[in-house]
C-alpha cells in the first residue's frame, strides 16, 4: 500500500485554474438560476393554462410566458457576460455538437423563443390581445396559435423541462468536477427551477385556485428537492474517495455553512414550513416565502457552481 501522500507541489499557477479552479462566477450562477426559473415558469404556465379558461386569468399568468422570455434574455445576457471571447458568441450557432450540453443549451434557448412567444400570445387575456393586435399585425399568427393550442403548450412544457434539465446537465456532464459528477443534478435543477417558477408567480396577485395549486406544487417541489439533495449526498457516500471529497465540501468543508444555511434551511426548510402554515391556517404570507425560495434557488446554483469547480481530480491521490 502506498504511504499517505503528504506533500504535493506544482509549478502551475494559471489564473482562474490554480490553486483552485474558478472559471465561472456570478454570471453563470445567475444564468443557471434564471434558466431554471424560466423553465419553471414555462412548465407551470403551460400546465395552468392547459385548459382554456372562461374567466380571464390573473395578470401575471397572462404575461408569464412572455415574462419568462425576458428573464431568459437576462440569463443569456449573463452567459454572454461570462464569455471570454464575446465577439465569437455567434459561433454557438455555426455548429451543433450533440455531445456538448452547452451546444444543446444554445439551441434549446433559440428554439424556446418562438414556442414560448406563441404560448405567450395564447396566454394573453382579451384586453391585452386587443391592445397587441392594434400595435402589431399578429391576427393570423394568433389564430394559427389558437388552432395549435395544445401542441404549442405541449411544446412549451417540453421546452421548459428540457431547459430545466439542461441547466443541471450542463454541470452534471462535466464529470471532471467530482461534485457535479452525479446524475441527480439534472432532476435537482429542474425541481428547483419548478419551485423557483412557482415562487416567482406567487409574488404576484393570483386567483385563489391558482395560488393554492402553486403553493402545493411548490411544497411538492421543495420536498422532492430535499429528497434529491439527500440522494446526492448518499450517492457521494457510496462513491469512494471521489465521493468522499465531494461530500466533504458540503458536509464539513469550505461550502458547508453556505450550503446548509442558505440552500437547505433558508431555501427549503423554512419556506416549506411557512407554506405548510399558510395552507393550514389560510394565512397570507405574500412576499416572504417566495422570496426565500427564489434566493434559495439562486444559492443552490451559486454554491454548487463554486463547490463543484473547486472539486477537481487533482484533489484525489
Amino acid at each position, binding site marked *: 500500500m502506498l504511504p499517505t501522500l503528504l*506533500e504535493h507541489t506544482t509549478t502551475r499557477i494559471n489564473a482562474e485554474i490554480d490553486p483552485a479552479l474558478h472559471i465561472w462566477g456570478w454570471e453563470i450562477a445567475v444564468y443557471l438560476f434564471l434558466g431554471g426559473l424560466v423553465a419553471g415558469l414555462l412548465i407551470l404556465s403551460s400546465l395552468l393554462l392547459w385548459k382554456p379558461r372562461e374567466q380571464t386569468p390573473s395578470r401575471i399568468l397572462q404575461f408569464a410566458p412572455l415574462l419568462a422570455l425576458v428573464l431568459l434574455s437576462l440569463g443569456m445576457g449573463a452567459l454572454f457576460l461570462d464569455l471570454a471571447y464575446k465577439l465569437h458568441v455567434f459561433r454557438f450557432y455555426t455548429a451543433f455538437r450533440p455531445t456538448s450540453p452547452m451546444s444543446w443549451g444554445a439551441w434549446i434557448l433559440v428554439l424556446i423563443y418562438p414556442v414560448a412567444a406563441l404560448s405567450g400570445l395564447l396566454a394573453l387575456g382579451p384586453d391585452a390581445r386587443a391592445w397587441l393586435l392594434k400595435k402589431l399585425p399578429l391576427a393570423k399568427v394568433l389564430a394559427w396559435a389558437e388552432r395549435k393550442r395544445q401542441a404549442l403548450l405541449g411544446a412549451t412544457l417540453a421546452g421548459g423541462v428540457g431547459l430545466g434539465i439542461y441547466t443541471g446537465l450542463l454541470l452534471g456532464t462535466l464529470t471532471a468536477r467530482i461534485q457535479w459528477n452525479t446524475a441527480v443534478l439534472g432532476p435537482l435543477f429542474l425541481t428547483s427551477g419548478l419551485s423557483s417558477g412557482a415562487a416567482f408567480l406567487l409574488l404576484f396577485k393570483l386567483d385563489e385556485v391558482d395560488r393554492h395549486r402553486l403553493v402545493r406544487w411548490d411544497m411538492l417541489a421543495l420536498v422532492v428537492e430535499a429528497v434529491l439533495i439527500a440522494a446526492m449526498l448518499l450517492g457521494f457516500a457510496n462513491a469512494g474517495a471521489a465521493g468522499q471529497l465531494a461530500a466533504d465540501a458540503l458536509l464539513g468543508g469550505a461550502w458547508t455553512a453556505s450550503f446548509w444555511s442558505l440552500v437547505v434551511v433558508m431555501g427549503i426548510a423554512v419556506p416549506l414550513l411557512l407554506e405548510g402554515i399558510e395552507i393550514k391556517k389560510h394565512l397570507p404570507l405574500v412576499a416572504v416565502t417566495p422570496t426565500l425560495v427564489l434566493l434559495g434557488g439562486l444559492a443552490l446554483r451559486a454554491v454548487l457552481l463554486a463547490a463543484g469547480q473547486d472539486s477537481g481530480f487533482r484533489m484525489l491521490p
Partner: protein
Amino acid sequence: MAMQRREFIKITGMTALGVAAASSVVLPKASQAAVDPGTDGDHTVATFCELCFWKCGVLAHVKDGKVTKIVGNPDHPLSRGALCPRGTGGTGLLYDPDRLKKPMIRVGERGQQKFKEVEWGEALDFVAAKLKDIAAKHGPESVAMFAHGFGGSFFKHLLNAYGSDNVGAPSYAQCRGAREVGFQLTFGSALGSPEVIDLENSRAIALIGSHLGENMHNTQVQEFAKAIERGAQLIVVDPRFSTAAGKARHWLPIRPGTDLALLLAWIHVMLNEGLYDRDYVEKYAVGLEQLKAHVADKTPEWASLETGLEAAQIVDSIRVLAGARPAALLHPGRHTAWYGDDAQRARAMAIVNALLGSYGRRGGIYYPTKLGVPKYPGIPDYGHKFKPAPDRPKGKAFPFADESLAHGLRDASIPGTAEYDIKAWLVYGTNLMQALPEPKKTIEAIQHLDLLVAIDVLPAEIVGYADVVLPEATYLERWDDVVVTPYKEQYIAVRQAAVKPLYDSKPGWWIAKELANRMGLAAFFPWNDAAEMVKARLTAGKFDVESVLKKGVALGARKPVFIEDGAPAVFATPSKKIELFSQQLADAGLDPLPKYTPPEEPGPGQFRLLMGRTPTHTFGRTTNNRFLSEIYSENELWLNAQVARELGLENGAQVRVVNQDGVKSTALRLKATQRIRHDCVFMVHGYGHSAAGLNFAKGRGADDAALVTRTKVDPLFGGTGMSVNFVAVERV
C-alpha cells in the same frame, strides 16, 4: 465506475432531451493545423550561455532584430542540444527592463544609490584618471578586481597590463576552493569546471551535500540522468531529502557538519572489508598503511553516534558504492565552503575515490584534454612581475591556496590589516554583497576605497556602492573571448553577439579597450572589437573561422582520457603518486590525514542555516529575471514539519529567521516539510534583494548571505566555511 457514470449521464442527457444523438455539425470546420506561434528566428546565432558559468552552447533565434527564443546547440559538447531552464531564460536577462542603461557617476554617499547619468567619455575619463592617480600614489597592485563571468577576462587583461594581478573570485574561497585544494593535494590536480568527472559511465554515484538536479549544471545533470537510466546506484548524503535523494537507493540524512566522520567510517569499512582497488592503490598511491592506522578506530558504530545515521546504513551504502569500483564515483561537489574543515573533507573524499580506483578511470575522474589556441597573438608581454596578493591577514599563511581569496582582498581594503592596502575595486558581474560572507565588513571596506567601479548588467546591491557604474551589454549582445575548456572532448567555442546592444550598454571588450586607450595601454588591445580578436585567435590557431562561427564550436580529435584507454596515469604531486598520506600537509604543520572534529550543536530553538540552489536560478544573478521567476519568484524556509508544528507554525506561514548575532532576515514563506532534518533549516541562496533598481527581485524572500555573520576559516587555504551560523525561526 466513473466512466460508466459519465456514459450514463451522457445517455440520460440525450434521452431526457428527447433527441437521438445527431451527428456533429461544425461550420466552418476547425483548422487541422496548429497555429504557429512564430518564435522561430529568421536566423540563429550560435553562442554560449551566461546565465550560469557552465558555458553551454546555445542557438539564439533572432527575428526582426529581437531574440525570440534560445535553444540548445546540438553541436556543443556541453549542451548536446539540451538546456537547463536558465538557458532558455536568456531573453529574460536581455529584455529585463531594470537593466543598467547608461554610465553613471555617484552623486550621493556610497550605498545611497544616488547617481547622475553621464556619457561614456566622461565615465571612462574619470575611471582612467583615477586609476592612473592610484597607480602613481599607491602602486598599481593596490587595485583589485572581483569577477564572476567569462566576460571578465578582458578586464583581467587590462588589470594585468596595468600592473596588478589581484583578481579575486568568490567562486574560489566561498565556493569550490576546498574541493580543488583537497583533490590537488591528493591527486596533484584540481577538478575545474566542468568538473572532470565521468558521471555517465558511473555504476555507482555518491553525493555528499551536492544536490544535482537542483544544481543544474547542464552536462552534469544530463550524465547523472543517463547513469540512473543505465541503472547506476545512487547514494545521497544530505540533511535534506533533495531531488537526488528522491532517486537514491540510500539516502543518508546526516547531521550537518559530520560528513568527515562518515567518510572516515567509509574508509574504515573499505579497508577492513577489502572493498578497494588493491592493484591500483599499490601501483599509484602512497600512505595506505598510515591511512589504515588512522581509521582503525573509525568504525561505523563510532560514526553512527556522530552522524546520526544507522551503522548498518553506513556499511551498506559504502558496499554499494565500492561494489561498482572502479566505475564508482564519490562526487567531489562544487560549493564546498561549509564548516571550515572543508579542504580536509575534500581530502577524505579524494581518498575514497583513490581507494575506489576511480581517478583516471571510466565512470570516475578523467584526465581532461583541450585544444590549443594561441592567446592574444601579437600582444606585448605585460612586462612586470606582479606583487603577491595581500589577500590574507598580515603574517597569516594559507599554504595551499592557489587562487586569490576574494574576501581577503576585501579585507585588505581596511587599511593596515594586510601586507599592503587595496585602494580600488573593479567589480565585474559579481554581487559582492551576497557573494561574500559578513556583508557588514564589505560595506566597511568600501568606505576606505579611493575608487569602486562596477561593470554589470543589472543594478545589484554592489552597484549601489560604486563610484562609477559601467553598463555592460549582455552575453547576447556582445562578443567575448574564445573559450577553451579542459574536458573529455577537445573543443573550443565562441560567444557572438546575437543582437545589437540595447540602450547605451557596451560590450566588455569595448569598455576595457577604451579604458586602456586612456591609460596608455592601447598596445594591449590592438583589435577594434572582440570579433576581430576572436577571428585573429582562431586564424592563429588554424581553425576554419567561418565554420567555427557558424557552429559556435569546433571539436578536436578524440584523445584518451581514461587510463584504460591509454591516457598516462599522471599524478602531479611531489611523490608523483596519489597521496593518501600527505607529506605536504605534514610539512606545513597540518594534519596529513583528515581529522574529524565534532561540529558545534545548535542551541535550544536554534537551527543550522543551510543554503542551496533552485534549478531555475543562478543565485542572486537571475532573481530579477522575470521569465525565470515565472517558476520560482521567492525563496522559502525549509523547516522540519514536526518541528514546525511544535513551534506552532503552519506550512506557508510568513516567518523570518534571526541568527546568533541577532541579525534578522526579511520575511519569507515557511515550507514545513518532511524533507529535512529537525536540526537545520534550508533556503535557496540569492533572494532578499534590497537594491532599489531591482524592481522585480527587491523584497522577495530572504538573503542567507546577510545571516552569515561568522565563518570558519579553512587553515589549508583560507576558505570561508559559511554553514556555521545558527538561526531561530519566528512568525512575522
